[in-house]
């Protein structure tokens, strides 16, 4: 064995050092791409730097807290936040319930189960931006929702301009999210249910439980930790909603009626070039999310049995 190879072999027996070596590339990439920008975010948020101000950003003077003061008085920021929370709180439970409903539909054996399952999973695989696009197309004035579905339901020429009404516009964005992510909930709940050990189900069956009772008393309680994890992950994911908003309502229209927090920060940074304020708002959001994540990390860290 050559000396270099031998060295590696010896190193691999020192768990601490070798482990750290294996983590090195990860650490470098994370530092370079995530930690440094995070530092910049903090710095910027305490300045009032503007790209057109004529100085480089690192020369900008520390201005203290004006950005934060502004943010706490910024009604548009607060509304964006509230709107996003409403979005999450509406969309995630609906997705879960629908997912559970579809799961019930798929329990047991029936003809064509495999094909049906594959079809149901389809939306998950569509790029977010395309989901936005297709719902955008569906809800056009001359789109199929107006011309086919509403006509069939109410008759006549009901013509609703979905994207001009604040509430309806928000609703279409929610629908797009529900359409795309209900399958994930279905997949999680379904595979959770079938992963419950067969012997537990058989034991309950022999003891006289009906399949409904087995579901309610054995299977669902056993996958509760899994459901909680799914809800948390989906919730945090839904909180990021941006792509659909961007393409369907031009990142927030009409007015700011569908402006989510991601869309607002995007506009602050890119359209208004107000980078230091955008950084401050981002920072506030991150701190808030970190607190939520701290609460969320507990069920996440424990692997469900």
């Amino acid at each position, binding site marked *: 064995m050559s000396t270099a190879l031998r060295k590696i072999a010896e190193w691999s027996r020192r768990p601490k050092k070798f482990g750290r070596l294996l983590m090195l590339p990860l650490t470098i990439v994370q530092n370079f791409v995530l930690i440094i920008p995070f530092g910049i975010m903090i710095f910027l948020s305490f300045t009032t730097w503007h790209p057109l101000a004529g100085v480089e950003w690192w020369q900008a003077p520390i201005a203290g807290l004006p950005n934060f003061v502004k943010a706490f008085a910024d009604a548009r920021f607060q509304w964006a936040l509230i709107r996003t929370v409403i979005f999450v709180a509406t969309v995630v439970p609906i997705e879960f319930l629908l997912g559970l409903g579809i799961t019930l539909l798929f329990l047991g054996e029936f003809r064509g189960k495999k094909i049906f399952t594959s079809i149901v999973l389809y939306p998950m695989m569509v790029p977010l931006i395309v989901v936005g696009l297709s719902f955008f197309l569906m809800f056009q004035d001359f789109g199929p929702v107006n011309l086919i579905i509403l006509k069939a339901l109410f008759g006549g020429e009901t013509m609703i301009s979905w994207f001009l009404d604040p509430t309806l516009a928000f609703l279409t964005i929610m629908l797009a999210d529900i359409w795309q992510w209900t399958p994930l909930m279905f997949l999680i709940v379904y595979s959770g249910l079938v992963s419950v050990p067969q012997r537990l189900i058989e034991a309950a069956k022999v003891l*006289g439980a009906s399949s409904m009772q087995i579901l309610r008393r054995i299977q669902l309680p*056993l996958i509760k930790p899994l459901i909680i994890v799914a809800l948390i992950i989906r919730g945090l994911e839904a909180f990021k909603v941006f792509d659909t908003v961007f393409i369907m309502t031009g990142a927030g229209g009409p007015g700011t009626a569908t402006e989510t927090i991601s869309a607002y920060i995007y506009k602050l940074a890119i359209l208004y070039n107000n980078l230091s304020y955008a950084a401050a708002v981002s920072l506030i959001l991150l701190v808030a999310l970190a607190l939520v994540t701290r609460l969320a990390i507990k069920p996440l860290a424990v692997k469900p049995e």
Partner: protein
Amino acid sequence: MAKLVVRNLRKLFGDFEAVKDVSFEVSERETLCLLGPSGCGKTTTLRMIAGLETPTSGYIYIDEVLVNDVPPQKRGIGLVFQDYAIFPHMSVFDNLAFGLKVRRTPKHELTARVDETARLLGLSDVLHKSAKGLGLSEIQRVAIGRSIILDPKILLLDEPLSNVAAKVRERMRGELKRIQKEIGIATVFVTHDQLEAMVLGDRIAVMKDGLIEQIAKPDEIYAHPHTLFVADFIGSPSMNLIECELLEKEERVFLDAKDFAIDVIKFAETIKKKATGPELIMGIRPEDLSMSKKKIDPKAIRGEVQFIESLGSSSIYHLRVGQRPLLVKGLLEVETGDKVWVMFDLKKLHLFDKKTEVAIW
């Protein structure tokens, strides 16, 4: 009529015939052990009795009622699974009460029956603990309690001790025996461990390749195995099985095993009548052989000690007699490498037909 009657049970999984033709009866308060190596069909048989598998053909009667088409929960059986399958997310109380709850038993009756069962099994102290933190012995009792609380007509146990460390298994085996005596329900018990079967079974059915080879009381099965397989499977260490040939020479009839021969003139007639040919296999349990360093008996056979397995109170001596190994169990003052003389007790000798593998006597 018996509590449980199984007639000509057969089960196919695709092309594979897991159970070929199994019939037996279990009477009131009796424990029957289904014993066999893995893959012999014993668990499938049990699952058919429980109603978790549908027999390809054959009949199952419980209390003289044909139950082939009765769903598991209505058969009046209690089933204890291999890994016990207690519900990990419930307390002991909820585990015990599960069967009653799904039957919507009134609260006061439910509590009373759970308390009674818990007392019977010594679970009263852990009644409100979560099932997750229980010890193995408690888990076993919960699994049994959960079944017997519904007053089953038959209790089915599927290798309940198979995944337990040896020393613990011994203790739990004793505990199981005690519980069994106390509740006195007709029981079918599946195991691959012959010792367990001997201890727990009132009768044992030895299974191989989907068929029952012999069904009898433990001491009977031990003393008079009907087939070569049973002889080999029952008893630890295994019976010595030696191929031999029936020879007649100059008025004498003996079994010639190449390296030694045994005179069997007295039994010659019986052997000739039952055997399909001269090719036979003789069997003798290691504890039925005796040996000494000096030649006491003129018929003794010479062997050499290859190595010794010590069992504490006795030892197993691995001998070499000519070219073949021979096991002797006992407690003797010999050491590895010693030359010894082995004596056969003709009364304890088993003889099997080589072709049919059936016992001749």
